[in-house]
């Protein structure tokens, strides 16, 4: 599937090499695109990553199982909970621990709340990338209200470290449900406004419709998952196909699109935010308020997980997020691999889609794929 870029002779003077990033306002996070342009048109693109590489997979090999739970959330900064949940899930599966039902409900809520917060941040990024900075001001603030909820629930705004193998670290605070509902109502109103001023905005529509079309036959060869795939018409969602936590207990719809362009992907995500709110309201209604929220662990200071391997995935905002864990019966993991959807979206896919677009659209295209560099390089 790899198609070598057309031969480019830089010395001809026809082409210009242009770096977008790592220090560039039109780039998501700390990464860079090496663009070869001809006039305004991009003829080749190469993604450079590694600016945020910390070697998580290596670090995790020399930390104990409990210590790892604190570090995984740093892998995807705006969405730490997916890492926390997946790490907890793989360790639980291999050590034969089952989290109590109450913890599963709390986790479901946690993940959906994080999804909403992450989408809001992304929505702000879309606004900013297409010159609609007002959206950015609104959504980041509403995300902050969500972070307030997280702070109250978990004790931290960004790195929650709340979903621990075996359950969660604390009960929900008094009156939390009511405050959560209020925040959700606020976000719902905000989304309606955003629909009016962004999605119905002629500027946005003109610039995004037809930009960066992912055709159906690209999806599997490029490993595209998540909203990017659903916007191309595939009703595939890990939450529906391989249900985990409490997703088969609540009602929600898998949103799909057809046009598969930048606008459609944004639209799918907007609808998914509504679905997320719908899920969270049901979870709040049905969540048990009593009972244990943690299954006792062996002494974590010398916890040995039996030999084995497993892979568990979850649907994060960007697609399939998964943890592959290999243990050898010792106190340390033999190997852990974090599968992030951005890995293929930001590299293989971006390099293909950038070709033929306008320089000015690169930022918008990038944001429409919704990628986070830290999960690529880990």
């Amino acid at each position, binding site marked *: 599937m790899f198609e070598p870029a057309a031969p480019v002779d830089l010395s001809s003077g026809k082409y210009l090499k242009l770096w977008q990033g790592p220090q560039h306002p039109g780039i998501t996070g700390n990464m860079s695109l090496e663009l070869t342009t001809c006039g305004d048109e991009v003829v080749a693109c190469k993604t450079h990553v590694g600016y945020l590489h910390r070697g998580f997979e290596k670090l995790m090999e020399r930390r104990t199982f*409990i210590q790892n739970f604190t570090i995984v959330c740093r892998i995807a900064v705006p969405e730490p909970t997916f890492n926390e949940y997946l790490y907890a899930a793989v360790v639980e599966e291999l050590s034969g621990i089952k989290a109590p039902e109450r913890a599963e409900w709390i986790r479901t809520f946690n993940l959906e709340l994080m999804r909403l917060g992450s989408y809001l941040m992304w929505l702000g990024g879309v606004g900013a990338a297409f010159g609609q900075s007002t959206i950015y*001001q609104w959504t980041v603030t509403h995300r902050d209200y969500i972070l307030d909820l997280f702070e109250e629930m978990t*004790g931290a705004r960004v790195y929650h*470290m709340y979903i621990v193998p075996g359950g969660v670290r604390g009960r929900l605070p008094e009156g939390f449900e009511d405050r959560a509902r209020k925040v959700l109502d606020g976000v719902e109103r905000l989304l309606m406004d955003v629909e009016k*001023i962004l999605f119905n905005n*002629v*500027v946005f529509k003109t610039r995004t419709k037809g930009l960066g079309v992912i055709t159906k036959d690209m999806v599997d060869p490029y490993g595209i998952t998540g909203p990017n795939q659903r916007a191309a018409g595939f009703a595939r969602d890990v939450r529906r196909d391989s249900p985990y936590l409490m997703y088969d207990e609540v009602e929600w719809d898998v949103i799909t699109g057809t046009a598969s362009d930048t606008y459609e992907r944004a639209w799918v995500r907007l609808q998914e935010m509504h679905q997320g709110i719908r899920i969270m309201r049901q979870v709040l209604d049905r969540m048990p308020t009593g009972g244990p929220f*943690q299954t006792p662990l062996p002494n974590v200071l010398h916890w040995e997980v039996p030999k084995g391997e497993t892979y568990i995935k979850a649907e994060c905002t960007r697609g399939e997020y998964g943890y592959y864990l290999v243990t050898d019966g010792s106190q340390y993991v033999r190997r852990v691999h974090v599968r992030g959807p951005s890995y293929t979206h930001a590299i293989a896919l971006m390099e293909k889609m950038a070709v033929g677009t306008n320089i000015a659209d690169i930022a918008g295209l990038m944001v429409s794929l919704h990628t986070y560099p830290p999960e690529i390089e880990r």
Partner: protein
Amino acid sequence: MSLKDLISPFYVWQRAFQKPYTQKRPIEERPGAPRYRGFHINLTEECVGCGSCEAICQNHAIDMVKVEGLEPRNGDSGLRPKFDYGRCCWCALCVDICTARSLRLSNHYAWVTEDPDAFHFIAGTDAMPWNQNSLGYRRDDDYHLLTHDRIEMDALSPEESLKGFDEVMKGYTEEQALLEADRCVECGICVATCPAHMSVPDYIKAVRNKDWEGGLKLLYETNPFSTTCGRICTHRCETDCVLGLQGTPIAIRWLKRAIADRVPAERYAEILNDTFTENGKKVAIVGAGPGGMSAAYYLRKQGYGVTVFEAQAHGGGMLRYGVPSYRLPENQLDKDIDYIRSLGVDVRFNTRVGQDVPFSELMDNHDAIFIATGLSSPMKLRIDGEEHPRVVSGLKILDDVAKGQDPGVGKRVAVIGGGNVAMDAARVSRRVGADVTVLYRRRIEDMPADPEEIHESKAEGCHLVPQAIPVKIKDADDPNQVVIVWGEAEMVSDAKGGRPRPVLQEDRMHEETYDTIVSAIGQGGDYDFMGECLGSIEQKWGKFIPGAYQQTGVSKIFVGGDIANSTADAISAVEDGHHAARGIHRFLSEEGLQ
């Protein structure tokens, strides 16, 4: 392009009339949430410096450091956690694991400075602006990283145990032992408390790894009475076990037994591999109890020719004649003693020094002497009528039973005392069918006996009467009975802050008739055999006061065990023996003894 798309964005104006998002003064208005994981607070008084926080910290952000004015003492290492805020990620695992629950986080989160070296502080000790914050992350009551409850050991039911002298505690199964060993946080605070300073965390780790042989080697480094101590040790270590701060301490004693029970006696020699070359020097040891035999073991390992003189027909001293076999079966005691003897230690039984062999002979023929004769003379009650024939000592009863004789206590027995001997005498009397009442001066919680013993005595139907002071013993109508007069006591707190003192209430006296009164309020020593040497050895309250390395004023005489320590238990005797062996070795080798 539709008109709607053109107009729709102007909808943004309606927001101009809404309350603005902006927080006026965020720094002041937004303290951390009640559960916020902000900066650390440590309740220094409650912290015991176990270092679990340091062990769990994945960022190596915590150092255990000495704190001025805080000296290590039993149960507290005197160290306190020092935090590096160039490392800490506020995950609060340290709070979750904190055994004393003294560590917590405040909801304070602001620290800005230009000095990168400033971000170190000892939580709770250094004056930090957030020390008084009452909010912040605490471990939830229903969330645990440690197992706070001990794994129970299977035991005979009180009904079964009363039927005979079978061992009551059955010992851990392998699965139970692993679970119990898993609870340990390996802080090592117990090591200081253990009189023998056994490598507790290491042998617990050996249990966890099912490395019974390695465990046995560790045990023998400091204690050649592991099978025995694994059953009847007073386990001071458990008192200071940090797991006990929030739950029950690790069953350190039972885990020791778990190791020793899993290695058959035949394999000891092969595993311990105690090889040595004779160094030609000779040491005499008086008394084959835990102190004497322990000294014999460690001296023998260094090549000394060791002769032990024992007045009784078997070794073990109080372990054999003072501890009933339902707590310590004789074959288990023999397992320990036989191994020591197998190394070539010459034990002369039925040889009472001063009677069967003169002390001077020991002095003349040996390079050093270690005396650990134990306390075998029961202390007097010092009340009227004590000489009544129906008043017997607790030791006598235990001795009788150990020798297979009927103690002949009758149907109604009163035991006076609250120590282990009293409990054992009571339980032995129960086993021969008596109704037993235990009279003790102070409260039950003041009893010097092990809590397990107290608990089991009660379970077996002994009637414990605390705050009862014996006043007088007199004849009963029946010559085979005896009457005790005792009065109730009130505990009066000591003005100087000492432990409360029982004060007799003259108006609440009781007079009761029993078949036998067992006096078990303690024992004293008998040192007459030492003759004139006695004058050069310091004594106080009937006990020797040895100098460094258990040495006495007569430089070649070393003393240990119950006659030379205040704790008077097996494990202290073992350490005295071990320590005297160190001293004797220094004394007889070139190192010298300062």
